[in-house]
């Protein structure tokens, strides 16, 4: 990390006043199903009570991955809400089996319980003026953007979604996006159409033809910077969902800060609290 970033002060906003009614819940949820989506990703569906389903696209849960013979994670692991359904009492996560925590998670089976804390953080906001959104997801960023697509559909906003992945078999949830009425464009490294150059051309084309006036993205720092550039040139705003290593997940420890551009200079914000969704142009 560069020396200049060390000079950034951490900022935090306190909740308004006395809170006697919990809004973040810690509970044991039963696993309804837990399937491999492809060779790297698993979809976990939990039976969840109403209190935690009062959530928004972009928020996340903090999962207590189990202790197993092979994996002994200590911290919880943050995971975006992939789906929530009050009628069916379901909460779901789509995750990549990466290391210790997700490795342990992957060993759970339907019928087991999982301790979850949430919902946490600031979700996406679809401003009234953002009538023609573009979603740009890379890899597991799809998991985070999926519920946003549903929300756009329910708000009646026509939607274009670009899904990027290493190879076609790692493209997920394109049907989910199509079911939301989205126009879906897939790009992959393997096909050679996922680079910044071709994507920029593609998106500038979409701005011209579809009248795109908002960007939502998740899953790639490179693509975020590309959207910042395009957004600046075309005067288009938007939001990005970011990640950072976390300890507490609910704003107490200041572990998860990232720097953001503000009028009065850079400021450190907590991804778990002021985020994980941030203004696209403020992200650094």
């Amino acid at each position, binding site marked *: 990390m560069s020396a200049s970033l060390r000079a950034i002060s951490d900022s935090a906003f306190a909740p308004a006043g006395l809170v006697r009614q919990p809004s973040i819940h810690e509970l044991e949820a039963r696993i309804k199903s837990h399937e491999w989506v492809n060779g790297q990703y698993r979809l976990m569906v939990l039976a969840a009570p109403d209190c935690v389903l009062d959530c928004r696209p972009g928020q996340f849960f903090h999962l207590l991955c189990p202790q197993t013979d092979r994996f002994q994670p200590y911290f919880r692991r943050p995971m975006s809400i992939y789906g929530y359904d009050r009628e069916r009492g379901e909460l779901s996560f789509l995750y990549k089996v990466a290391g210790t925590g997700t490795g342990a998670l992957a060993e759970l089976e339907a019928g087991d319980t999982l301790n979850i804390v949430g919902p946490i953080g600031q979700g996406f906001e679809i401003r009234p003026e953002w009538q023609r959104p573009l979603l740009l997801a890379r890899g597991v960023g799809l998991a985070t953007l999926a519920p946003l697509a549903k929300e756009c559909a329910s708000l009646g906003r026509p939607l274009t979604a670009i899904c990027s992945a290493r190879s076609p078999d790692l493209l997920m949830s394109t049907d989910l996006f199509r079911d939301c009425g989205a126009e879906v464009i897939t790009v992959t490294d393997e096909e050679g159409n996922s680079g910044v150059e071709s994507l920029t051309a593609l998106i500038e084309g979409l701005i011209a033809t579809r009248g795109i006036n908002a960007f939502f993205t998740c899953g790639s720092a490179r693509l975020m910077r590309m959207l910042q550039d395009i957004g600046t040139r075309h005067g288009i705003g938007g939001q990005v969902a970011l990640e950072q290593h976390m300890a507490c997940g*609910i704003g107490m420890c200041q572990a998860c800060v990232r720097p953001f551009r503000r009028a009065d200079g850079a400021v450190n914000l907590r991804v778990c609290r002021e985020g994980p969704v941030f203004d696209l142009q403020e992200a650094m």
Partner: protein
Amino acid sequence: MADLSTRIGALTLKNPIMPASGTFSEELAEVFDLDCIGAHVTKTITREKRSGNPVPRVCEVNGAMLNSIGIPSKGADLFVKNTMPFYAAYEAPLVISISANTADDFARFAEEVSAPGVAAIEVNISCPNIEDHGKAFAIRPGSTEDVIRKIRSATHLPIWAKLSPNTGEVVEVAQAAEAAGADALVTANTMLAMAIDSRSGEIRLGNVMGGLSGPALKPITLRMTYQCAKAVAIPVIGCGGISSVDDVIEYLMAGARAVQVGTATFISPNTMPRLVAELEATLAARGLASLDALIGAARLADETITLAEYA
């Protein structure tokens, strides 16, 4: 119903469970009613606004954690404006943790925060990050005595001296704090530690070294609690690796009159209310009316050589 109250000098807490500085904030009110615990202890603040350490600020190691958060501080002004009024709405006493770079700055800042609504000042003379790689006031009796004495003359509020495990002179430091006028000791802060990714060679904290907390720390800080409780007359507040009611009882038996819960709250945000309930249940199950029978009850086994007989 068992009486969980405990006295820390002039202050009576309704139960001995409180948060450790830096592992607690207003946000926890969204998880449980903050009035169910014995006291509120804020993250250490400094007088001036200051940034924390580079990320990664935390990592996990063998069932415990390292942190090099540093002391990011929004400064005293914002603290008084935003944080103090928040806690004023609760009955639990408010303990403010402060830090500074020199003994005089410490004293000046202590005077400034001695405002109505503050029940005690915890002086973090042990944070291993703020000074050069772990050297802090609480490493030597001399510097401890100096800083506490200056703070003592600057405030009428109870002073809780938070000690460090990064010293070979625990007992001398504790006695120096007592002699200089501290009203209680908190044992202890984190232990300076480090982790490296064996694949990439990357040091796992942006600040190179950081503080070890969580279960791995417990045997060390429990030992400090025992040493200090034997060596001083002022109350000792145990801290380090507490996550179960058995941990709480071990600290009480070692001589602590109250305990602070840190990292465990990250693993389960409801740890503190659970510990209050379980401590009450344990007292009831053991037929104890208060904490008195537990505090300082540790003793050597009568006959350590003969193992119990089987049947």
